[in-house]
């Protein structure tokens, strides 16, 4: 009876394996296909109506001619790098304190920090805009940087990370005469590099791609970030040249691709950290 069951399962399993790979390859095609198509279209500018490959003039050159790409890249890079560095530092410091020290109101404070993760940014955007305006920072890049520096998720992540490091290290350093500052900066911070990488990569990915906040906080084109600039390429009624827009999209994807190539392992772990386990 039992051998029969095994025999009978074999052909079904063979079909199952083929079906499995067909589904997975199809899914890979669907996830990568549009990006490959974008690259091909950007590299071979065609007239959208006649499908004739246009002679002369590259779509990439067209992007640089139509919008100040370098300015937008500079703005995006400045915002993204400062936010990423600021989040790494502030999250490391706060996470360290929550992991290592006991103090009054610690639980309440940590609970409140976690609670801020629950409220969608869109709900607080009006008062944040007022605050930024009141600080005289409306329509500046600082409006994008300063509110993004503290990170509840990063603090949580770094706390988890520091809790995983042995307390004995700090104790040994203290016995050797290191003060609390040195214990942090020379002992724990270097050991926290993988955690910092996760916070940094997540911040980089989020803020490089961010659209909603820049749309609200910046008004003049000289303060646009790359995603905003790209959407202006599209033209008012979507009349922009397909190749040009897609060439712009490719340019904006390059840092994301680099993050994907070099940072995908920490990214994969970071995205699921603290929720899966």
């Amino acid at each position: 009876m039992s051998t029969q069951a095994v025999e009978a399962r074999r052909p079904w399993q063979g079909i199952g394996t083929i079906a499995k790979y067909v589904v997975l390859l199809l899914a890979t095609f669907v996830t990568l296909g549009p990006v490959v198509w974008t690259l091909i279209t950007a590299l071979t500018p065609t007239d959208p109506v006649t499908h004739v490959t246009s002679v002369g003039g590259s779509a990439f050159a067209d992007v640089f001619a139509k919008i100040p790409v370098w300015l937008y890249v500079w703005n995006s890079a400045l915002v993204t790098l400062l936010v990423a560095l600021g989040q790494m530092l502030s999250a490391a410091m706060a996470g360290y304190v929550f992991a290592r020290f006991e103090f009054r109101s610690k639980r309440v404070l940590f609970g409140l920090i976690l609670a801020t993760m629950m409220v969608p940014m869109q709900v607080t955007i009006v008062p944040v805009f007022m605050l930024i305006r009141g600080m005289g920072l409306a329509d500046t890049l600082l409006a994008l940087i300063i509110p993004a520096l503290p990170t509840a998720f990063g603090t949580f992540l770094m706390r988890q990370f520091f809790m995983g490091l042995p307390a004995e290290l700090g104790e040994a350093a203290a016995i050797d005469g290191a003060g609390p500052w040195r214990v942090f900066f020379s002992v724990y911070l270097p050991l926290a590099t993988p955690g910092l990488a996760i916070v940094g990569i997540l911040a980089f990915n989020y803020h490089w791609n961010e659209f909603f906040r820049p749309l609200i906080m910046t008004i003049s084109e000289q303060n646009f970030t790359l995603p905003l600039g790209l959407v202006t390429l599209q033209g008012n009624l979507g009349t922009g040249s397909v190749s040009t827009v897609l060439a712009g999209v490719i340019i904006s994807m390059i840092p994301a691709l680099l993050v994907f190539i070099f940072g995908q392992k920490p990214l994969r772990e970071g995205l699921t950290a603290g929720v899966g386990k």
Partner: protein
Amino acid sequence: MSTTSSTQAPAASDSVARSGATRRPRLLISLFLAPTVIGLALFSFLPIVASVVLAFFRWDIITSPEFVGLDNFARLASNPTVRVSFLNTIGFVATAVVVQLAVALLLAILVQSKMPNWLRTFFRSTLFFPLILSAASVSLIMAYLFNQEFGLVNEVLGWIGIAKVGWLTTGFGAKVVVLLVYVWQNFGFTFLLFIGGIAAIPKEVYEAASIDGATGWKQFWQLTLPLISPTMLVASVMAIINALQIFDQPWVLTRGGPGDETRTAVMVIYESAFRQLDFGGASAIGVVLTLLIMLVTAIQFQLSKRFVFYG
């Protein structure tokens, strides 16, 4: 483990001598907490309170705020655009979350099934790729793929004799495209969560089950699904919270059109505040959206008491 530092041996450092048995470097604690605590208080907590207060005022930034009680909420309830945008958002969340969870679960199970390691690594990396792209870029790409006249999608459909579909120019088509584009970009996150959840299931459980004769579908329904139900809860809560905030994709793809067919709640917040300078109304919509998120999350946690299995 985190608190062992308070029992540290009294070493030579100054702060130890000063604070006695409980060694707490107060200055370090306060300075290290300051950026995060002050920052979040200023840019997260205060705005939440302000948003709730503002919802009861009429304010256009120029003139001084005027208390109007529940008037903003009453206006919302009777404004057809607001009503439609909330219905759109709820319909979108219901469909997008179901599709996203189903696709992610299917792919995660397939990727975690028996296969060579290099192949598993390949699929695990490529399938979440869209997640790292910007929603604005993705929407720009998709606007061309789904263009009625020259889009690749209609062209491929043309090969099998299907007439050109007005993907972005008809209400139903635009809704479908927004849904597809959103799920395309976001299923990767749920997929990663499920991979983590499935990887955490001990192999012995399956071995025991197959000895008892449970295979294929039976294994899926009776083992995998109950064992990853905690992951399922986290995944669905996060998917719903994220989907309720959809903005970038419909904004770039359709600007909310045709008509109000793809207008979402967040789009109305943006338009009332920054286009019509109705900051009270925008805050009121924000408050309603937050309450909606809290309500849905609470219901999910209640339901989870019955369906989530902690092994």
